[in-house]
């Protein structure tokens, strides 16, 4: 029981990951796909942030009164991944704007229908 509840942040990670992937796969709307992709990436951010946490650990600022520190490295790593996520989203949105200009739609099936006779 304690492992199940004690690891609740990992359950959240798995839940968000599955929700995100499902939206990416199931939704024909391109914007919603990107939202799904973002949720999927966010789950990984939480995974990294969770792993840096040390029980009772303080923020990693040198101080004589503190003996246990949380691990800052995963947090630094995930900052990089967040930047990557933001730029991926920006690029995807830019592509969607161009797709909307070219097809007049952001629904995958309508776009597909327009290209089929070509």
């Amino acid at each position, binding site marked *: 029981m304690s492992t199940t509840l004690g690891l609740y942040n990992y359950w959240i990670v798995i839940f968000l990951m599955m929700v995100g992937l499902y939206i990416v796969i199931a939704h024909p709307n391109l914007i919603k796909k990107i939202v799904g992709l973002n949720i999927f990436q966010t789950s*990984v951010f939480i995974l990294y942030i969770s792993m840096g946490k040390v029980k009772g650990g303080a923020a990693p600022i040198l101080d004589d009164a503190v003996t246990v520190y949380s691990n800052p490295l995963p947090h630094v790593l995930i900052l990089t*991944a967040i930047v990557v996520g933001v730029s991926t989203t920006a690029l995807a949105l830019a592509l969607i704007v161009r797709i909307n200009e070219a097809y007049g739609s952001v629904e995958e099936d309508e776009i597909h229908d327009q290209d089929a006779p070509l």
Partner: protein
Amino acid sequence: MIAANLPALQVVIPLLAAPLALMLRRGSLSHLLALLVSVVSLLISYSLLQAVLTSGPISYAMGGWEPPWGIEYRVDAINAFVLLIVSVIGTVVMLAARTSVAAEIQEKKQSLFYTAYLLCLAGLLGITTTGDAFNVFVFLEISSLSTYILVSLGRDRRALTAAFQYLIMGTIGATFILIGVGLLYMTTGTLNMLDMAARLAPLTDSRTVQAAFAFLAVGTSLKLALFPLHLWLPNAYTYAPSMASAFLAATSTKVAVYVMLRFFFTIFGVEFSFDVMPLGIIFMALALLAIFAGSLVAIFQDNVKRLLAYSSIAQVGYMMLGVSFATQTGLVAAILHLFNHAMMKGGLFLALAAVCYSTGGTSIANFRGLGKTMPWTMMAIVLGGLSLIGVPLTVGFVSKWYLVLAALEQGYWPVAVLVLLGSLLAVIYIWKLVEAAYFQAPDEGAVVVKEAPLSLLLPTWILIGASIYFGIDTNLTVSAAESAAAALLGTGVQP
């Protein structure tokens, strides 16, 4: 001073040149810069390969922070070889780029093309040089994001949807790799690849390590377009500008194969990957499916770029088949095919760029009568096609020879037979091109087609020439592949 910093300069120069290319704004100036940078990175990778072959692996501490704390750039026999492949292809493609890009991309977007190309080059070189697992992810995303831009610059509006589809699948793949690296960090507490390999050795029973392995297997398979995770590839290669197709087809999947080899052989070690986890049988089944599905679908394509894209999926299958044996000969075959396929596919896509330049399209209909009107381009396509089939005296034969040897060594003779049957399918789709070009007259009233300019023919023939030369004189490639395979199969940690 400069010699000691070569591993870093290899990545930093194209990375810094990219914003410069954007600021130059003029397509021709950006092209000159991109060509110059490609040549410089070719010189660097050549001297790195020489240094590695004479005096062993080079370790470079980024920013002076000693590994395993800092980011280490580590060049050994295998990634020096991959660096050379990427920079050779980059240089040759840039030689051809001016003519083709000027014809296919609007003037104001040309400098964007070269900027994205330089970023992609920096990313691919970075993935290859780095010895840090998280750094792999960062460079992977640099190269992927710039690849999406390159694809979206195509003329057809379907380039946009192709780029979007690639973005979705590429991001999922990269995020899977990120999860895998995270789980590995969780168990080992290090990101340095060699350090990680040493600490993983006693942890083969850990469920976390096995989950990391699975995530990395799926993530890298998505990136290298292993069947059935190849769905992004055909559209991306078909609708991208010709030069982007040539560069990506010859480099990006190769670098992804390298990442996979690095993770499964250097970090996890061959015992864990193939004995504890059932990677061998899974890869063998998927590789054989890739060879047949890719080749069969290629036969029915009307657009030649799409035909070659499906053929790429089959060729990735041959590489992964070599990997799945996990033996010295199998790895030699895979690494040889890495190089050989880069040469022939690069050459073929450059030849297609010439066809597109002269006829305005790349469907089979465009090929009618090209045997007479564009003899040099068509000859290059035929030679490249023979190499794809694996006819003796071409590079395709050399890698298939080693692949069949590796299969027979293990007693898998049905696999060897299937490899040969797969080659027969390649005969069919190459024959379609030959038939249209040499035995059909062009449509009545069609515009008279002229041979492509020398600026496109010369780079094409450099790669096609290389794919014939290295098919006859195999000393250099085979010895490089052998030392790379030995390094991968060694204890994982090299002295």
